[in-house]
């Protein structure tokens, strides 16, 4: 593995150079700049050092707190539902004797092909007050009044959750499918011969193999949901009925480009997201490691 050092590592750095340079300018510098900016107060381009003023403002800002609550609510509700559904479908699809497997798989995966804006358009039109979804629900007598999807705080949130789940379940399902197919069939055969019942097989063989994948998808889904922007800006551009679908990213966008820009404060809010991502990822890693030990 170790080759003639000196020479090859110089080449190595030359290969890595373009990427690292670009990242230094367009990721590292901005992230540090954001940190600096979060300490600045002022409107537009008039900055002045404000110390912890922005952080204080966070605690007083009801809209921010609403956005934070919304984002966390979405996270806590949507991600587990989606992962569970994806898991369920992956397990269902993993049966080789199932007919039409490829067709089901393609169909369930198809939503992933859409752009975030495109599918937001679809959902916004389908869930209109007199829209096709409400008609369908009424026809099946599930409800007797159309649901105010876009004008009610609770239902707006629900709509967003439904949309995200529609879009990303297939994506996560593919990961689970791959992990399931990586399990040697001979392990199951040995278990069958030993007389181990199917639910125990699932618990002792299937689940442990899935833990790394579940962790991966949960972390990526968490990061994605915490940064949610495209859908909410398209379906509920102003933050939804009484700001019920205002996410942190949307709020930052509004702070920066809609109202009289408060770049410093916007940077502070964005660091809240960074912190949340770091904390939650860390927690998830620790939880996965603990479960792997016994």
């Amino acid at each position, binding site marked *: 593995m*170790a*080759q*003639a*050092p000196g020479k090859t590592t110089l080449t190595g750095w030359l290969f890595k150079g373009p990427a690292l340079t670009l990242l230094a300018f367009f990721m590292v510098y901005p992230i540090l700049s954001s940190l600096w900016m979060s300490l600045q107060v002022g409107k537009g381009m008039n900055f002045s050092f404000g110390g912890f003023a922005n952080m204080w403002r966070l605690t007083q800002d009801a809209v921010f707190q609403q956005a934070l609550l919304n984002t966390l609510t979405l996270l806590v509700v949507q991600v587990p539902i989606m992962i569970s559904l994806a898991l369920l479908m992956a397990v269902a699809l993993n049966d080789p004797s199932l007919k039409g497997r490829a067709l089901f798989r393609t169909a369930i995966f198809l939503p992933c092909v859409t752009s975030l804006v495109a599918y937001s358009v679809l959902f916004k039109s389908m869930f209109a007050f007199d829209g096709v979804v409400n008609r369908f629900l009424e026809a099946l007598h599930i409800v007797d009044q159309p649901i105010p999807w876009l004008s009610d705080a609770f239902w707006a949130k629900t709509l967003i959750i439904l949309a995200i789940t529609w879009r990303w379940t297939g994506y996560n399902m593919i990961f689970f499918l791959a992990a399931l197919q990586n399990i040697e069939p001979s392990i199951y055969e040995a278990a069958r011969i030993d007389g181990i019942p199917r639910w125990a097989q699932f618990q002792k063989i299937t689940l442990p193999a899935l833990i790394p994948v579940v962790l991966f998808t949960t972390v990526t889904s968490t990061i994605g949901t915490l940064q949610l922007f495209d859908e909410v800006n398209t379906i509920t551009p102003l933050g939804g009925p009484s700001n019920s679908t205002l996410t942190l990213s949307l709020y930052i966008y509004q702070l920066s480009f809609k109202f009289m820009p408060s770049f410093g404060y916007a940077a502070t809010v964005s660091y809240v997201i960074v912190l949340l991502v770091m904390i939650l990822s860390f927690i998830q890693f620790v939880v996965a490691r603990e479960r792997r030990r016994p």
Partner: protein
Amino acid sequence: MSGLKLRNVRKSYGAVEVIKDVSLDIEPKEFVVFVGPSGCGKSTLLRMIAGLEEITVGDLEIGGTRMNDVDPSKRGIAMVFQSYALYPHLTVRENMGFALRFAGVAKDQIVKQVDDAAHTLALGELMDRLPRQLSGGQRQRVAIGRAIVRKPEVFLFDEPLSNLDAELRVHMRIELARLHKSLAATVVYVTHDQVEAMTLADKIVVMNRGVISQVGSPLDVYDNPDNVFVAGFIGSPKINFLKGVVERVSKTGVTVTLPGYSDAKISFATKSVLLAVGDAVTVGLRPQHFNTSGTLKFKLNVELIEHLGGESFVYAGNGSGDLITVATQLGRGLKAGEKFEARIDLAKALLFDQAGQRVR
């Protein structure tokens, strides 16, 4: 064709030394085999000769020129890898001509050299195929062809037959031996298979844990091992090692008793003065050296017999000593549980001291 010299070569990865002071002379046109167990350093040594690994300390000379800092492609070597390492996206013809392309050789010259090599290895009809369309043996020949095209001073082979099935391996062994003769090439060949080593080599280099245990011709190394490692590694089935104790020491030799075998006494003629009465020694007896007329006798009970058809391996013991393996062509009638007398000429016994060194 050039010769090759290694002088006090050492290699370390950080704090770990994997090659410890190796010196070796390889004559032009010699077929030298590095053999030893996994991890002994034989592949590392080969890669150092190729220039794929750095030589930490010491000198490498090929054809009289010091090659330590020379680029692999300029050392006059060509290498055949264990997994053939054929470029999967190129045809056989392109694979063989690849190096010449980058050496700036004229196109028609490349065609000529590739065709020559293809002819030598009878690759004619495979020339336009891709590696994935070839069988293991065919890929192996292409890999050799690729090496031949470059007209190197030294050929390097890194366990080239390991990935082939048993029958193909035997066939390729013969082809390699023939090639060596017809090309009159200097070859350095690495393998863990002592049968390959014995059959192909002009000179065997037995390695163990980064050092050379012994260098010699195959029969030399077989008949006259320098230490227990070489004695145990070369020869199949493995040599029998029996524990012994020195009973008597004289000017002409020593007498050794074998505690496990009703104190059979063996006298060894030796000029060594390093042994004393009571020293623990090891006696080596090769399974193939047992016969029907030897003076050293062992009365044994057969535990297990393996019949190979042409000969049988008898595993027998007396309950208190180690199991003795006897290779015999007269074993067909024997069954497990029967009594068996193993006899061997005293002259065939090998004596090793406590540290495993051969006592001569």
